[in-house]
């Protein structure tokens, strides 16, 4: 086994595990954050709207790498404790994707025509019941394609985390070529590794979109 193309694979597969772990866990929290922030942006209470808007604008207006360093080094200093790099990576994905997901949630909820809400309210359902049983289930369906898109974006964003030595795919590739001097081969394989997830992902998404439009 001399070929660096093959040699690098065990490293990259180890990296793939970390990448997927960070992406999935980060997005689960990000979805929670995004749902809260997205609904807060639609709230009648000015304070909720304001807080959510600040969150979304600050996160969308700053680079994710800065956010990561902020969490890993900045927060560590502020709280004078060591934040584990994996926790920092997950937190960064969560906070970052949360802001974009908030906009996805807001857009989806707003896209449900007002007549649905009126029908719910006219039957005596409360505001929150109408949201929960009438608007939200319909909005969820419309969120699936943009959420899938966000998954692909967040997955690629994890590559930035090699700067704090989180062992994701790109970090593993760098580790490999720093000792073997085969960056071309290592990086080619690393990129193929990303494509292995993102291309089937977007194909699947496109199918899903067609299905959703169909009904």
């Amino acid at each position, binding site marked *: 086994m001399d070929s660096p193309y093959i040699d690098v694979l065990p490293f990259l597969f180890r990296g793939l595990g970390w990448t997927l772990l960070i992406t999935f866990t980060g997005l689960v929290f990000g979805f929670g954050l995004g749902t809260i922030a997205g609904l807060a942006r639609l709230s009648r209470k000015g304070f909720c709207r304001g807080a959510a808007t600040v969150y979304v604008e600050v996160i969308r207006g700053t680079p994710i790498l800065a956010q990561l360093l902020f969490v890993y080094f900045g927060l560590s200093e502020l709280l004078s404790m060591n934040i584990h790099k994996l926790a920092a990576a997950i937190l960064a994905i969560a906070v970052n994707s949360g802001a974009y997901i908030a906009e996805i949630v807001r857009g989806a909820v707003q896209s449900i025509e007002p007549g649905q809400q*009126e*029908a719910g309210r*006219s*039957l005596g359902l*409360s505001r929150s019941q109408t949201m929960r049983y*009438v608007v939200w*289930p319909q909005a969820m369906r419309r969120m699936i394609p943009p959420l899938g898109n966000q998954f692909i974006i967040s997955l690629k964003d994890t590559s930035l985390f090699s700067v704090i030595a989180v062992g994701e795919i790109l970090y593993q590739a760098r580790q490999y070529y720093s000792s073997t001097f085969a960056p071309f081969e290592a990086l080619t394989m690393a990129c193929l590794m990303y494509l292995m997830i993102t291309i089937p992902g977007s194909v699947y998404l496109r199918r899903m979109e067609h299905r959703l439009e169909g*009904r």
Partner: protein
Amino acid sequence: MIRTRGLCKRFGDLTVLREIDLDIHPGEVVCIIGPSGSGKSTLLRCLNGLETATDGEVTIDGDSLNTTEASLNQLRARLGMVFQHFNLFPHLSVLENVQLAPRMVQGKTVEEARVIAEQLLEKVGLSDKAHVRPDRLSGGQKQRVAIARALAMQPEAMLFDEPTSALDPELVGEVLSVMEELVKEGMTMVVVTHEMGFARRVGSRVLFMDEGRILEEGTPEMIFDHPGHPRTREFLGKVLRMS
């Protein structure tokens, strides 16, 4: 049972309703006619608090709509509403559409709600469609489901907002006949409509609205055969010539 006093509604600079005083008595079928933009639909939506009055008051059996959110929800449950565009819940089956409010608002069990829903679907002639999604139905069928959904809450009165205006002409009849059935049962109804034939046949009172005011009201015979106000005559002249 439904009463408005000095009801005004403004959207910004636009005044849609001016000083409406209206009493709807139990068992009455009040048809509201008038040109588009005259405030008919807004008036109807003020009656169940979908729109909040800018001025004046709406009461249902003496209970004011100007109240807390929770009591307003309870008041709304006492009035059924049917919309021009049906507004069925597309993610639920026909049966679930009808069951939802009795379960969530009245706390009925799935089983109790199902019995009610099945009875009502039979009443509107759609028992066989119980398990399909609304997008499989024709406009007339959708509107009949919407009527069943509103009736499931056992409302004291029904509000209809142009229930046949979005329908293909050949589907209007099936909806009107369901409504006429309700009239026979003595349901109190307020109907905003362009169906002059329906208003004449079943209305106990017809209101003519123009520019946010009730210009004229009376029995169908009075309004249709001897309209007093020139605007009423003009409107009826145009509408009846068309049909």
